[in-house]
Protein backbone atom coordinates (compact mmCIF):
# COMPACT_ATOMS: atom_id res chain seq x y z
CA UNK A 1 0.00 0.00 0.00
CA UNK A 2 1.41 3.42 -0.88
CA UNK A 3 2.31 5.90 1.82
CA UNK A 4 0.34 9.15 1.43
CA UNK A 5 3.49 11.05 2.38
CA UNK A 6 5.56 9.59 -0.46
CA UNK A 7 6.75 12.33 -2.81
CA UNK A 8 4.75 14.88 -0.84
CA UNK A 9 5.99 18.47 -0.76
CA UNK A 10 5.09 20.29 2.46
CA UNK A 11 7.31 23.38 2.38
CA UNK A 12 9.43 25.20 2.93
CA UNK A 13 8.43 27.19 -0.18
CA UNK A 14 5.49 25.23 -1.60
CA UNK A 15 2.88 22.84 -0.23
CA UNK A 16 1.03 20.10 -2.08
CA UNK A 17 -2.72 20.53 -2.16
CA UNK A 18 -3.12 17.00 -0.83
CA UNK A 19 -1.98 18.26 2.58
CA UNK A 20 -5.35 20.01 2.89
CA UNK A 21 -7.51 17.47 1.07
CA UNK A 22 -6.45 13.90 1.68
CA UNK A 23 -8.35 12.06 4.48
CA UNK A 24 -5.43 9.63 4.80
CA UNK A 25 -3.09 12.53 5.55
CA UNK A 26 -5.61 13.87 8.05
CA UNK A 27 -5.54 10.54 9.88
CA UNK A 28 -1.73 10.62 9.93
CA UNK A 29 -1.85 14.14 11.35
CA UNK A 30 -4.05 12.90 14.16
CA UNK A 31 -1.66 10.05 14.93
CA UNK A 32 1.67 11.81 14.46
CA UNK A 33 0.92 15.43 15.33
CA UNK A 34 -2.08 15.64 17.63
CA UNK A 35 -1.16 12.55 19.66
CA UNK A 36 2.38 13.75 20.28
CA UNK A 37 2.23 17.53 20.67
CA UNK A 38 1.07 19.73 23.54
CA UNK A 39 -2.57 20.76 23.21
CA UNK A 40 -4.24 23.58 25.10
CA UNK A 41 -6.82 22.27 27.57
CA UNK A 42 -7.90 25.12 29.84
CA UNK A 43 -7.02 28.38 31.55
CA UNK A 44 -6.20 28.58 35.25
CA UNK A 45 -9.15 30.85 35.92
CA UNK A 46 -11.55 28.09 34.92
CA UNK A 47 -10.58 26.17 38.08
CA UNK A 48 -11.53 28.56 40.87
CA UNK A 49 -12.79 25.87 43.25
CA UNK A 50 -12.71 22.10 43.67
CA UNK A 51 -14.99 20.46 41.12
CA UNK A 52 -14.59 23.12 38.41
CA UNK A 53 -13.91 21.37 35.12
CA UNK A 54 -13.25 21.86 31.41
CA UNK A 55 -13.71 19.05 28.90
CA UNK A 56 -11.79 18.87 25.63
CA UNK A 57 -10.67 16.58 22.85
CA UNK A 58 -7.06 15.49 22.68
CA UNK A 59 -6.34 14.04 19.26
CA UNK A 60 -10.01 13.11 19.10
CA UNK A 61 -10.00 11.50 22.57
CA UNK A 62 -12.35 13.02 25.15
CA UNK A 63 -10.52 14.35 28.20
CA UNK A 64 -11.58 16.16 31.33
CA UNK A 65 -9.55 18.62 33.39
CA UNK A 66 -10.91 18.99 36.90
CA UNK A 67 -9.72 20.60 40.09
CA UNK A 68 -9.77 18.05 42.88
CA UNK A 69 -10.78 18.40 46.52
CA UNK A 70 -7.07 18.34 47.30
CA UNK A 71 -6.53 21.53 45.24
CA UNK A 72 -4.69 19.77 42.40
CA UNK A 73 -5.91 20.16 38.83
CA UNK A 74 -5.69 16.90 36.88
CA UNK A 75 -6.44 15.71 33.38
CA UNK A 76 -8.28 12.42 32.88
CA UNK A 77 -9.68 10.52 29.96
CA UNK A 78 -13.37 11.43 29.99
CA UNK A 79 -14.70 7.89 30.07
CA UNK A 80 -16.19 5.59 32.66
CA UNK A 81 -14.07 2.56 33.59
CA UNK A 82 -17.17 0.35 33.43
CA UNK A 83 -18.68 0.54 29.93
CA UNK A 84 -16.72 3.46 28.53
CA UNK A 85 -19.56 5.98 28.69
CA UNK A 86 -18.62 9.64 28.28
CA UNK A 87 -18.71 10.89 31.84
CA UNK A 88 -19.12 14.62 31.30
CA UNK A 89 -20.89 16.07 28.28
CA UNK A 90 -20.73 19.76 29.14
CA UNK A 91 -17.81 21.91 27.99
CA UNK A 92 -17.22 23.46 31.37
CA UNK A 93 -18.86 23.90 34.74
CA UNK A 94 -18.82 22.50 38.24
CA UNK A 95 -19.32 18.99 39.64
CA UNK A 96 -19.13 17.75 43.20
CA UNK A 97 -19.03 14.14 42.03
CA UNK A 98 -18.59 12.53 38.61
CA UNK A 99 -21.48 10.10 38.28
CA UNK A 100 -21.75 7.95 35.19
CA UNK A 101 -25.34 8.20 33.94
CA UNK A 102 -25.38 4.57 32.78
CA UNK A 103 -24.91 2.49 35.98
CA UNK A 104 -24.13 5.27 38.47
CA UNK A 105 -20.48 4.46 39.07
CA UNK A 106 -19.24 7.47 41.02
CA UNK A 107 -15.82 9.13 41.08
CA UNK A 108 -14.62 11.94 43.29
CA UNK A 109 -13.02 15.06 41.88
CA UNK A 110 -9.56 13.55 42.46
CA UNK A 111 -10.52 10.79 40.00
CA UNK A 112 -11.02 8.01 42.55
CA UNK A 113 -13.84 5.55 42.06
CA UNK A 114 -15.68 5.44 45.37
CA UNK A 115 -19.05 3.87 44.66
CA UNK A 116 -20.28 1.03 42.46
CA UNK A 117 -23.88 -0.16 42.87
CA UNK A 118 -24.01 -3.86 43.78
CA UNK A 119 -20.24 -4.19 43.58
CA UNK A 120 -20.32 -7.60 45.32
CA UNK A 121 -21.38 -9.24 42.03
CA UNK A 122 -17.87 -8.62 40.67
CA UNK A 123 -16.44 -11.02 43.23
CA UNK A 124 -13.82 -10.65 45.91
CA UNK A 125 -11.01 -9.51 43.62
CA UNK A 126 -12.78 -6.37 42.49
CA UNK A 127 -11.17 -3.24 43.84
CA UNK A 128 -12.44 0.31 43.56
CA UNK A 129 -8.90 1.65 43.44
CA UNK A 130 -8.10 -0.43 40.35
CA UNK A 131 -10.83 1.45 38.53
CA UNK A 132 -9.95 5.08 39.09
CA UNK A 133 -10.17 7.46 36.16
CA UNK A 134 -7.27 7.12 33.76
CA UNK A 135 -4.95 10.12 33.81
CA UNK A 136 -3.65 11.61 30.56
CA UNK A 137 0.12 10.93 30.46
CA UNK A 138 1.20 14.57 30.52
CA UNK A 139 -0.51 17.67 31.89
CA UNK A 140 1.52 20.81 32.50
CA UNK A 141 0.96 24.49 33.07
CA UNK A 142 2.63 27.56 31.60
CA UNK A 143 1.70 31.20 32.25
CA UNK A 144 -1.74 30.24 33.54
CA UNK A 145 -2.49 27.86 30.69
CA UNK A 146 -2.86 24.11 30.99
CA UNK A 147 -1.75 21.86 28.16
CA UNK A 148 -2.08 18.08 27.80
CA UNK A 149 -0.11 15.55 25.81
CA UNK A 150 -0.92 11.90 25.10
CA UNK A 151 2.75 11.08 24.58
CA UNK A 152 4.48 10.10 27.83
CA UNK A 153 7.86 10.65 26.16
CA UNK A 154 7.11 14.20 25.02
CA UNK A 155 9.53 16.97 26.04
CA UNK A 156 8.39 19.25 28.85
CA UNK A 157 5.86 21.90 27.86
CA UNK A 158 8.32 24.73 28.43
CA UNK A 159 11.01 23.14 26.31
CA UNK A 160 8.41 22.37 23.62
CA UNK A 161 7.40 26.04 23.56
CA UNK A 162 11.05 27.02 23.14
CA UNK A 163 11.38 30.53 21.68
CA UNK A 164 7.56 30.93 21.70
CA UNK A 165 7.47 30.84 25.51
CA UNK A 166 8.30 34.52 26.04
CA UNK A 167 5.71 35.59 23.46
CA UNK A 168 3.10 33.43 25.12
CA UNK A 169 4.02 34.93 28.48
CA UNK A 170 3.61 38.44 27.11
CA UNK A 171 0.33 37.73 25.33
CA UNK A 172 -1.25 36.02 28.29
CA UNK A 173 -1.09 38.76 30.85
CA UNK A 174 -1.92 42.45 30.85
CA UNK A 175 1.34 44.25 31.57
CA UNK A 176 2.26 41.73 34.23
CA UNK A 177 -1.23 41.15 35.52
CA UNK A 178 -2.84 37.71 35.18
CA UNK A 179 -5.84 37.26 32.95
CA UNK A 180 -9.14 35.55 33.66
CA UNK A 181 -11.40 33.83 31.18
CA UNK A 182 -14.75 35.59 30.76
CA UNK A 183 -16.18 32.86 28.58
CA UNK A 184 -15.58 30.62 25.60
CA UNK A 185 -17.71 29.33 22.77
CA UNK A 186 -17.29 27.27 19.61
CA UNK A 187 -17.78 28.07 15.99
CA UNK A 188 -16.91 26.05 12.93
CA UNK A 189 -15.71 26.50 9.39
CA UNK A 190 -15.84 24.26 6.34
CA UNK A 191 -12.16 23.80 5.60
CA UNK A 192 -8.94 22.22 6.78
CA UNK A 193 -7.68 23.00 10.28
CA UNK A 194 -4.36 24.42 9.07
CA UNK A 195 -6.04 27.27 7.20
CA UNK A 196 -6.92 29.11 10.41
CA UNK A 197 -3.39 28.83 11.78
CA UNK A 198 -1.91 30.00 8.47
CA UNK A 199 -4.39 32.84 8.22
CA UNK A 200 -3.77 34.10 11.76
CA UNK A 201 -0.03 34.21 11.14
CA UNK A 202 -0.33 35.77 7.68
CA UNK A 203 -0.58 39.55 7.87
CA UNK A 204 -0.35 39.80 4.10
CA UNK A 205 -4.06 38.99 3.73
CA UNK A 206 -5.39 41.57 6.18
CA UNK A 207 -5.00 44.60 3.98
CA UNK A 208 -6.77 42.91 1.08
CA UNK A 209 -9.34 40.43 2.41
CA UNK A 210 -10.40 42.85 5.14
CA UNK A 211 -10.02 46.05 3.11
CA UNK A 212 -13.67 46.98 3.39
CA UNK A 213 -13.92 46.05 7.07
CA UNK A 214 -10.85 48.06 8.06
CA UNK A 215 -11.76 51.10 5.99
CA UNK A 216 -15.23 51.11 7.49
CA UNK A 217 -13.84 50.59 10.97
CA UNK A 218 -11.45 53.51 10.57
CA UNK A 219 -14.34 55.75 9.51
CA UNK A 220 -16.66 54.52 12.23
CA UNK A 221 -14.23 54.96 15.07
CA UNK A 222 -12.48 58.00 13.62
CA UNK A 223 -9.10 56.30 13.47
CA UNK A 224 -6.28 58.04 11.68
CA UNK A 225 -5.50 56.77 8.19
CA UNK A 226 -7.54 54.33 6.20
CA UNK A 227 -6.52 50.88 7.33
CA UNK A 228 -6.89 51.55 11.01
CA UNK A 229 -3.54 50.09 12.01
CA UNK A 230 -0.54 51.85 10.59
CA UNK A 231 2.68 50.30 11.75
CA UNK A 232 5.60 52.00 13.34
CA UNK A 233 8.63 51.82 11.13
CA UNK A 234 10.61 48.68 11.91
CA UNK A 235 8.21 47.15 14.40
CA UNK A 236 6.10 44.77 12.39
CA UNK A 237 7.34 41.25 11.87
CA UNK A 238 6.50 37.72 10.87
CA UNK A 239 8.40 35.47 13.25
CA UNK A 240 9.73 31.95 12.83
CA UNK A 241 9.89 30.58 16.38
CA UNK A 242 11.10 27.10 15.41
CA UNK A 243 7.83 25.17 14.90
CA UNK A 244 5.74 28.02 16.31
CA UNK A 245 5.14 31.38 14.67
CA UNK A 246 3.93 34.87 15.44
CA UNK A 247 2.86 38.13 13.93
CA UNK A 248 4.33 40.90 16.05
CA UNK A 249 3.75 44.62 15.56
CA UNK A 250 3.46 47.86 17.45
CA UNK A 251 0.23 49.59 16.56
CA UNK A 252 0.17 53.28 15.85
CA UNK A 253 -0.95 55.09 18.98
CA UNK A 254 -3.54 57.02 16.94
CA UNK A 255 -5.47 53.80 16.44
CA UNK A 256 -5.58 52.92 20.13
CA UNK A 257 -8.97 54.29 20.99
CA UNK A 258 -9.56 52.22 24.12
CA UNK A 259 -6.17 52.36 25.86
CA UNK A 260 -2.78 53.90 25.12
CA UNK A 261 -0.45 51.97 27.40
CA UNK A 262 0.01 48.72 25.54
CA UNK A 263 0.74 49.05 21.85
CA UNK A 264 2.28 45.70 21.00
CA UNK A 265 0.03 43.38 19.02
CA UNK A 266 0.98 39.70 19.12
CA UNK A 267 -0.80 36.95 17.25
CA UNK A 268 1.00 33.79 18.34
CA UNK A 269 0.53 30.31 16.94
CA UNK A 270 1.70 27.44 19.14
CA UNK A 271 2.12 24.40 16.95
CA UNK A 272 -0.13 22.84 15.95
CA UNK A 273 -3.44 24.21 17.16
CA UNK A 274 -3.30 26.92 19.81
CA UNK A 275 -3.48 30.62 19.05
CA UNK A 276 -3.08 33.44 21.57
CA UNK A 277 -4.00 36.92 20.42
CA UNK A 278 -3.69 40.37 21.89
CA UNK A 279 -5.16 43.24 19.90
CA UNK A 280 -4.34 46.67 21.37
CA UNK A 281 -6.91 48.50 19.21
CA UNK A 282 -9.78 46.79 21.03
CA UNK A 283 -7.65 45.95 24.06
CA UNK A 284 -8.79 42.36 24.00
CA UNK A 285 -7.03 39.05 24.51
CA UNK A 286 -8.36 35.89 22.99
CA UNK A 287 -7.37 32.27 22.61
CA UNK A 288 -8.36 30.11 19.69
CA UNK A 289 -8.19 26.37 20.07
CA UNK A 290 -8.30 24.65 16.70
CA UNK A 291 -10.20 21.36 16.81
CA UNK A 292 -9.93 19.37 13.58
CA UNK A 293 -13.13 17.44 12.88
CA UNK A 294 -12.31 16.03 9.45
CA UNK A 295 -10.04 16.99 6.59
CA UNK A 296 -12.48 19.74 5.54
CA UNK A 297 -14.29 20.63 8.77
CA UNK A 298 -12.87 22.42 11.80
CA UNK A 299 -14.24 23.63 15.09
CA UNK A 300 -12.72 26.56 16.92
CA UNK A 301 -13.07 27.14 20.64
CA UNK A 302 -12.63 30.86 21.16
CA UNK A 303 -11.92 32.41 24.57
CA UNK A 304 -12.41 35.97 25.72
CA UNK A 305 -10.08 37.07 28.54
CA UNK A 306 -9.81 40.11 30.77
CA UNK A 307 -7.25 41.41 33.27
CA UNK A 308 -7.92 39.94 36.70
CA UNK A 309 -8.43 43.38 38.24
CA UNK A 310 -11.08 44.43 35.69
CA UNK A 311 -14.31 45.31 37.47
CA UNK A 312 -17.72 44.08 36.35
CA UNK A 313 -18.31 47.07 34.09
CA UNK A 314 -14.92 46.70 32.45
CA UNK A 315 -15.48 42.96 31.93
CA UNK A 316 -18.81 43.65 30.29
CA UNK A 317 -17.16 46.16 27.99
CA UNK A 318 -14.36 43.74 27.07
CA UNK A 319 -16.94 41.04 26.28
CA UNK A 320 -18.67 43.52 24.03
CA UNK A 321 -15.52 44.62 22.20
CA UNK A 322 -14.21 41.08 21.82
CA UNK A 323 -16.52 40.22 18.96
CA UNK A 324 -16.02 43.35 16.87
CA UNK A 325 -13.34 41.92 14.60
CA UNK A 326 -13.11 38.29 15.61
CA UNK A 327 -15.36 35.26 15.58
CA UNK A 328 -18.35 34.24 13.49
CA UNK A 329 -19.98 37.68 13.77
CA UNK A 330 -16.80 39.79 13.72
CA UNK A 331 -16.03 42.09 10.82
CA UNK A 332 -12.79 40.29 9.95
CA UNK A 333 -13.93 36.91 11.27
CA UNK A 334 -16.74 36.54 8.76
CA UNK A 335 -14.37 37.33 5.91
CA UNK A 336 -11.93 34.68 7.15
CA UNK A 337 -14.54 31.96 7.69
CA UNK A 338 -15.93 32.54 4.23
CA UNK A 339 -12.52 32.59 2.55
CA UNK A 340 -11.45 29.34 4.23
CA UNK A 341 -14.39 27.51 2.64
CA UNK A 342 -13.58 29.12 -0.67
CA UNK A 343 -9.91 28.09 -0.45
CA UNK A 344 -10.96 24.54 0.42
CA UNK A 345 -13.23 24.42 -2.63
CA UNK A 346 -10.53 25.89 -4.86
CA UNK A 347 -7.95 23.40 -3.64
CA UNK A 348 -10.12 20.62 -5.06
CA UNK A 349 -8.56 21.49 -8.41
CA UNK A 350 -5.83 18.99 -7.58
CA UNK A 351 -3.54 19.81 -10.45
CA UNK A 352 -3.80 23.55 -9.88
CA UNK A 353 -0.21 23.80 -8.65
CA UNK A 354 1.26 23.84 -5.17
CA UNK A 355 0.29 26.37 -2.52
CA UNK A 356 2.90 29.11 -2.31
CA UNK A 357 4.30 30.01 1.13
CA UNK A 358 7.57 31.51 -0.09
CA UNK A 359 7.20 35.19 0.74
CA UNK A 360 10.46 36.43 2.23
CA UNK A 361 12.17 33.06 1.86
CA UNK A 362 15.33 34.80 0.70
CA UNK A 363 15.54 36.54 4.09
CA UNK A 364 17.09 33.68 5.98
CA UNK A 365 16.52 35.09 9.44
CA UNK A 366 13.97 34.14 12.12
CA UNK A 367 12.43 37.60 11.86
CA UNK A 368 10.80 38.46 8.53
CA UNK A 369 8.98 41.49 7.22
CA UNK A 370 5.29 42.05 8.03
CA UNK A 371 3.95 40.37 4.92
CA UNK A 372 6.52 37.58 4.82
CA UNK A 373 5.65 33.93 5.38
CA UNK A 374 8.19 33.24 8.12
CA UNK A 375 5.53 32.29 10.68
CA UNK A 376 3.60 30.19 8.15
CA UNK A 377 6.75 28.33 7.19
CA UNK A 378 7.39 27.63 10.88
CA UNK A 379 4.04 25.82 11.03
CA UNK A 380 5.04 23.66 8.10
CA UNK A 381 8.43 23.01 9.66
CA UNK A 382 6.63 21.55 12.65
CA UNK A 383 4.31 19.63 10.37
CA UNK A 384 7.21 17.99 8.54
CA UNK A 385 9.04 17.27 11.77
CA UNK A 386 6.13 15.49 13.43
CA UNK A 387 4.99 13.74 10.26
CA UNK A 388 8.47 12.26 10.00
CA UNK A 389 9.35 13.79 6.66
CA UNK A 390 12.98 13.81 5.79
CA UNK A 391 14.10 17.43 5.65
CA UNK A 392 17.15 16.54 3.57
CA UNK A 393 15.05 15.34 0.67
CA UNK A 394 13.21 18.63 0.40
CA UNK A 395 13.99 20.94 -2.45
CA UNK A 396 13.97 24.54 -1.28
CA UNK A 397 12.22 25.89 -4.35
CA UNK A 398 10.26 23.00 -5.75
CA UNK A 399 7.34 23.98 -7.89
CA UNK A 400 5.17 21.86 -10.13
Amino acid at each position, binding site marked *: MSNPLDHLVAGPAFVDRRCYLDPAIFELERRHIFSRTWQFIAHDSEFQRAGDFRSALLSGEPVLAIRGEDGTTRLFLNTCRHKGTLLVEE*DSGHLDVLRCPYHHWRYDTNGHLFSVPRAEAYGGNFSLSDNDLVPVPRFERFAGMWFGNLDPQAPSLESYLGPAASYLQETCNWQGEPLVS*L*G*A*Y*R*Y*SYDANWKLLMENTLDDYHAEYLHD*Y*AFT*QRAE*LFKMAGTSGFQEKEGSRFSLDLDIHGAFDQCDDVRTLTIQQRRERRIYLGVFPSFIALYNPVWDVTSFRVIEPVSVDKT*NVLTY*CLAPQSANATQ*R*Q*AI*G*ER*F*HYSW*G*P*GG*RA*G*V*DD*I*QIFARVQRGLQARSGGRVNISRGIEHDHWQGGPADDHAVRALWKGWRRYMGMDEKKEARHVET
Partner: protein
Amino acid sequence: MLKLDENRCINDEVNELLDEYVLCLDRRLGADWLRLFSDDGYYLVIREKEYLQDNNVLIVGEDMKRLRARIESGLLRDERRMAHSISGVRANADASRATATFTVWIEDRPAYSGVYRLQLLRLSGQLRIQRCEAILFCDIVHTPIFLPI
Protein backbone atom coordinates in the same frame (compact mmCIF):
# COMPACT_ATOMS: atom_id res chain seq x y z
CA MET B 1 -32.02 26.72 30.66
CA LEU B 2 -33.49 30.07 29.75
CA LYS B 3 -37.00 30.62 31.10
CA LEU B 4 -39.33 31.87 28.41
CA ASP B 5 -42.61 32.24 30.22
CA GLU B 6 -42.49 35.89 31.19
CA ASN B 7 -44.58 37.19 28.28
CA ARG B 8 -47.96 35.56 27.68
CA CYS B 9 -50.16 38.05 25.80
CA ILE B 10 -50.95 37.87 22.13
CA ASN B 11 -50.65 41.38 20.76
CA ASP B 12 -51.45 42.21 17.13
CA GLU B 13 -49.14 45.19 17.06
CA VAL B 14 -46.19 43.14 18.32
CA ASN B 15 -47.03 40.42 15.81
CA GLU B 16 -46.97 42.98 13.02
CA LEU B 17 -43.68 44.44 14.22
CA LEU B 18 -42.00 41.04 14.25
CA ASP B 19 -43.48 40.14 10.91
CA GLU B 20 -42.01 43.34 9.50
CA TYR B 21 -38.67 42.58 11.20
CA VAL B 22 -38.28 39.23 9.43
CA LEU B 23 -39.72 40.46 6.16
CA CYS B 24 -37.15 43.25 6.00
CA LEU B 25 -34.31 40.83 6.68
CA ASP B 26 -35.53 38.18 4.24
CA ARG B 27 -36.07 40.75 1.49
CA ARG B 28 -32.78 42.54 2.24
CA LEU B 29 -34.51 45.83 3.09
CA GLY B 30 -31.79 46.96 5.45
CA ALA B 31 -32.81 50.60 5.78
CA ASP B 32 -36.41 49.62 6.54
CA TRP B 33 -35.23 47.11 9.13
CA LEU B 34 -33.14 49.78 10.85
CA ARG B 35 -36.21 52.04 11.03
CA LEU B 36 -37.87 49.49 13.30
CA PHE B 37 -35.38 50.49 16.02
CA SER B 38 -35.34 53.60 18.18
CA ASP B 39 -32.35 55.93 17.82
CA ASP B 40 -30.82 54.47 20.96
CA GLY B 41 -31.50 50.93 19.76
CA TYR B 42 -29.17 48.04 20.46
CA TYR B 43 -28.88 44.65 18.80
CA LEU B 44 -27.00 41.62 20.05
CA VAL B 45 -26.46 37.99 19.19
CA ILE B 46 -25.28 35.65 21.93
CA ARG B 47 -25.47 31.96 22.71
CA GLU B 48 -27.84 30.88 25.43
CA LYS B 49 -24.98 29.69 27.65
CA GLU B 50 -23.21 33.06 27.66
CA TYR B 51 -26.56 34.81 28.10
CA LEU B 52 -27.26 32.78 31.23
CA GLN B 53 -23.74 33.38 32.53
CA ASP B 54 -24.28 37.11 31.94
CA ASN B 55 -20.65 37.40 30.83
CA ASN B 56 -21.40 39.56 27.79
CA VAL B 57 -19.18 37.38 25.58
CA LEU B 58 -21.12 38.38 22.51
CA ILE B 59 -21.11 37.20 18.93
CA VAL B 60 -22.57 40.51 17.78
CA GLY B 61 -23.36 43.57 19.90
CA GLU B 62 -24.03 46.85 18.16
CA ASP B 63 -25.49 50.28 18.71
CA MET B 64 -27.26 51.93 15.78
CA LYS B 65 -24.10 53.44 14.34
CA ARG B 66 -22.37 50.08 14.16
CA LEU B 67 -25.55 48.29 13.13
CA ARG B 68 -25.94 50.65 10.19
CA ALA B 69 -22.36 49.83 9.16
CA ARG B 70 -23.04 46.10 9.49
CA ILE B 71 -26.10 46.41 7.23
CA GLU B 72 -24.10 48.40 4.71
CA SER B 73 -21.20 45.93 4.58
CA GLY B 74 -23.41 42.84 4.92
CA LEU B 75 -25.61 43.79 1.98
CA LEU B 76 -22.51 44.27 -0.14
CA ARG B 77 -20.65 41.17 0.95
CA ASP B 78 -23.27 38.58 1.81
CA GLU B 79 -25.57 37.58 -1.02
CA ARG B 80 -26.93 34.44 0.59
CA ARG B 81 -30.71 34.16 0.72
CA MET B 82 -32.19 34.20 4.19
CA ALA B 83 -35.60 32.86 5.28
CA HIS B 84 -36.97 33.37 8.78
CA SER B 85 -39.71 31.46 10.55
CA ILE B 86 -41.04 32.87 13.79
CA SER B 87 -43.53 31.43 16.22
CA GLY B 88 -44.73 31.89 19.76
CA VAL B 89 -44.82 35.69 19.54
CA ARG B 90 -45.88 36.88 22.96
CA ALA B 91 -45.76 40.22 24.75
CA ASN B 92 -46.29 41.46 28.28
CA ALA B 93 -49.39 43.41 29.19
CA ASP B 94 -48.19 46.85 28.07
CA ALA B 95 -46.19 45.54 25.09
CA SER B 96 -42.93 46.86 26.49
CA ARG B 97 -41.37 43.40 26.20
CA ALA B 98 -41.82 40.58 23.77
CA THR B 99 -40.39 37.16 22.97
CA ALA B 100 -40.56 35.00 19.85
CA THR B 101 -38.94 31.77 18.75
CA PHE B 102 -37.09 31.90 15.46
CA THR B 103 -35.42 29.69 12.89
CA VAL B 104 -33.30 31.10 10.11
CA TRP B 105 -32.49 29.23 6.95
CA ILE B 106 -29.63 30.45 4.80
CA GLU B 107 -29.81 29.27 1.22
CA ASP B 108 -31.12 25.73 1.65
CA ARG B 109 -29.80 24.98 5.12
CA PRO B 110 -31.02 25.68 8.66
CA ALA B 111 -28.46 28.08 10.07
CA TYR B 112 -29.67 29.44 13.41
CA SER B 113 -32.47 28.87 15.86
CA GLY B 114 -33.25 30.57 19.11
CA VAL B 115 -35.37 33.21 20.68
CA TYR B 116 -35.69 36.95 20.26
CA ARG B 117 -36.10 38.94 23.43
CA LEU B 118 -37.24 42.44 22.64
CA GLN B 119 -37.49 45.57 24.67
CA LEU B 120 -40.05 47.85 23.01
CA LEU B 121 -41.13 51.43 23.29
CA ARG B 122 -43.66 53.67 21.64
CA LEU B 123 -42.44 56.59 19.53
CA SER B 124 -44.95 58.95 17.87
CA GLY B 125 -47.56 56.27 18.31
CA GLN B 126 -45.44 53.56 16.68
CA LEU B 127 -44.03 50.54 18.45
CA ARG B 128 -40.24 50.47 18.09
CA ILE B 129 -37.42 48.15 19.21
CA GLN B 130 -35.07 49.57 21.80
CA ARG B 131 -33.15 46.37 22.35
CA CYS B 132 -33.20 43.12 20.42
CA GLU B 133 -31.44 40.09 21.83
CA ALA B 134 -31.13 37.17 19.42
CA ILE B 135 -30.26 34.27 21.72
CA LEU B 136 -28.96 31.22 19.87
CA PHE B 137 -29.81 27.68 20.94
CA CYS B 138 -26.63 26.00 19.77
CA ASP B 139 -23.40 24.45 20.96
CA ILE B 140 -21.47 25.49 17.88
CA VAL B 141 -22.06 28.49 15.64
CA HIS B 142 -21.83 26.88 12.22
CA THR B 143 -22.68 29.83 9.97
CA PRO B 144 -20.92 33.21 9.98
CA ILE B 145 -23.15 36.17 10.76
CA PHE B 146 -22.74 39.08 8.34
CA LEU B 147 -26.25 40.50 8.40
CA PRO B 148 -28.48 40.56 11.48
CA ILE B 149 -30.54 37.45 12.05
